[in-house]
């Protein structure tokens, strides 16, 4: 027993549950934060890009293999479908930016926001129309037998989510900090007109930002479908939570989004377990955190004006 009067293995289990949830939130939050960093606007259609990415992955996956058969080909098929989903989502993100946001770039800031909400509703309903509204099962590519460690359980899929999340986030961080394109992104986020004067193709950089953010969303979408099934409204709540995560970490800040996501996942889990917040109020935790952060530290936990903001 410990401080909270909960057995150690149970506490560890909650920690694992919270981390997996948090890793998914973080991956989604990155897309919000990258777009905000550059355009100072919140892409509310991000959750739907995630959902469509997941559907794209689903169809490719089931087109090239029968996952119930198992075997190494299924893993190969899964990787192919993951990559295809990333490409499709990325193109979709770029397309949406081109059609719905770019024409409004000089408009008052409310306009692109409303346009984003419109896009979100359109995509969600189109998905419901074409794919149907029932939940679908996304079969695991790997044998998902639970691993038991001293009363604590972890599934291979959870490990995969944590690993993929970590790899994606590190890769993104390195890309933004070290590469030339990353540098251009940072410059664009600081001052678009000066960046343009320095010879940076601002439109290209913005498209690239949408492409990367959307590709990450596709990965998060597929991870979510594995754990929580696939359905047209899956991006809605996840998108909202990820948006909160981005704000908590300091919107516009890459490390902040990662931190915010993990923190939110843990808070949702431990808020219930330790603080004894009724389970029915689980979603309330996330929104209360948003309100508290906006009241106390509106710039987010990690101060925004450090260099790496994108």
């Amino acid at each position, binding site marked *: 027993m410990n401080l909270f009067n*909960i*057995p150690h293995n*149970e506490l560890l*289990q*909650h920690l694992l*549950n919270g981390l997996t*949830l948090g890793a998914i939130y973080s991956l989604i939050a990155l897309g919000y934060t990258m777009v905000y960093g550059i355009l100072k606007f919140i892409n509310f259609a991000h959750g739907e890009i995630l959902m469509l990415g997941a559907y794209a992955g689903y169809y490719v996956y089931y087109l090239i293999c029968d996952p119930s058969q198992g075997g190494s080909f299924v893993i190969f098929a899964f990787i192919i479908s993951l990559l295809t989903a990333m490409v499709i989502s990325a193109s979709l993100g770029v397309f949406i930016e081109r059609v719905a946001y770019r024409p409004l770039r000089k408009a008052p800031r409310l306009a692109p926001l409303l346009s984003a909400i419109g896009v979100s509703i359109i995509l969600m309903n189109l998905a*419901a129309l074409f794919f*149907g*509204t*029932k*939940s679908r*099962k996304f079969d695991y590519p790997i044998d*998902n037998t*639970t691993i*038991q460690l001293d009363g604590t*359980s972890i*599934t291979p899929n*959870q490990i995969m989510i944590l690993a993929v999340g970590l790899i994606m986030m590190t890769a993104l961080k390195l890309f933004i900090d070290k590469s030339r394109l990353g540098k251009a992104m940072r410059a664009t986020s600081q001052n678009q007109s000066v960046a343009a004067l320095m010879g940076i193709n601002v439109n290209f950089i913005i498209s690239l930002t949408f492409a990367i953010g959307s590709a990450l969303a596709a990965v998060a979408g597929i991870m979510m479908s594995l*754990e*929580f*099934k696939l*359905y047209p*409204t899956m991006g809605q*709540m996840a998108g909202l939570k990820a948006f909160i995560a981005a704000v908590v970490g300091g919107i516009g800040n890459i490390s902040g989004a990662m931190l915010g996501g993990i923190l939110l996942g843990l808070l*949702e*889990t431990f808020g*219930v*377990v330790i603080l004894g917040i*009724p*389970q*029915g109020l*689980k*979603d309330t935790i996330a929104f209360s955190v948003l309100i508290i952060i906006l009241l106390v530290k509106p710039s987010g936990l990690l101060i925004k004006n450090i260099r790496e903001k994108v």
Partner: protein
Amino acid sequence: MKKLLSVLISLMLLFALACGKESDVVKSGETIKIGFLGPMTGDAGNYGKLMSQAVKVAVEEFNAAGGAEGFNAEVLVEDTEGKVEKANPAIEKLAGVDKVFGIVGSVFSSVSLAVAPKAEASKIVMISPSSTHKDLPEKGKFIFRDVMSDALQAIVFGKYLAKVENVKTVAILYIKNDYSQGLAMDFKAQFEKEGGKVVAVETALQGDKDFKTQLTKIKGANPEAIYFPNYVAEIAQMLEQSKQLGIKAKFYSADGFSNPQILELAGDLANGVIYTQAAEQPTSQKRKDFEAKYLAKWGEKPDAFSLNAYDGALIMLNAIKATSSKAMGGNLKIDRDKVRDFVAKTKDYDGASGKITFTANGDLVANIGIYTAENRKFKQLKMFKLDGENLVEIK
């Protein structure tokens, strides 16, 4: 001015009265409208889809048999998404604009409880095929259901678990909606009365997909059995995550489990889950005919609630047929009170779901079956009825 106003008001009153009369008449060449109210989209869309298809089969059958005095019936399907806020405008439309004579629905208890007062006020016979909340029939004279009450289901199940399966400790994980909460609370009270112990009660919200926090807490309480009185989208997640957390308890559920989608979503995890549902009556020719017709028309099999929806639709259509009469100008006159009284008198109606009899307040007289899922199929294990306080097995 005042005079003009009073004339206007009395004219409006007259008009309103005339309209009121008008609503009970189907003009020559028009159809007798009934409504279906249920989730057609969203997580629970499959329930509504299957049931509305059953109502359409019933209407087709009714029309093929000549309708009422040659008037054909028509069903108007309104989507509730399983949500009260969507159901309110839907019932307003059915009652106010379409002026339907009966409603098959709603599907979820929360929604049925919310729309019942409007149906009652507009004198629309409402027969719910699937809302099992114990309070529903008390909502009014016009409110019926041909599905068994949760109170009965939960009481029988509490007794069954304690006495027949000899389970001592149970944990409950339910979704905060009227259906699940009602079942969970009634079951808990009954199980404790029988000497059982409920070691953990956890809740979640409709639409949640992640139940690991609750299940981890339940695992810590180490119950012999877990009761999931929810709908299939959630049960599938709960079964899967219980397995992932290495929970060894036995799983139990209620009639929400009977939607075949569970077999697809949960796969082999559905095997061995035991649940209650209205007892299956000997498969009648009527049921076989309906199932064959349904399969031929829609290319899929009906679920248990669809049988109820089909029966409910025919009960109300037959009542309309029996009580309506030709009026002047080739119109059809339908008296809403008479329709209601005819439906209320239903006794041993030979339906696809079995014999249907309504109690005085519009509830269904039912026996309870104990079912399980096995190799991707549902199977009835035992059948019980409540004789006063005693659980009696029907052989």
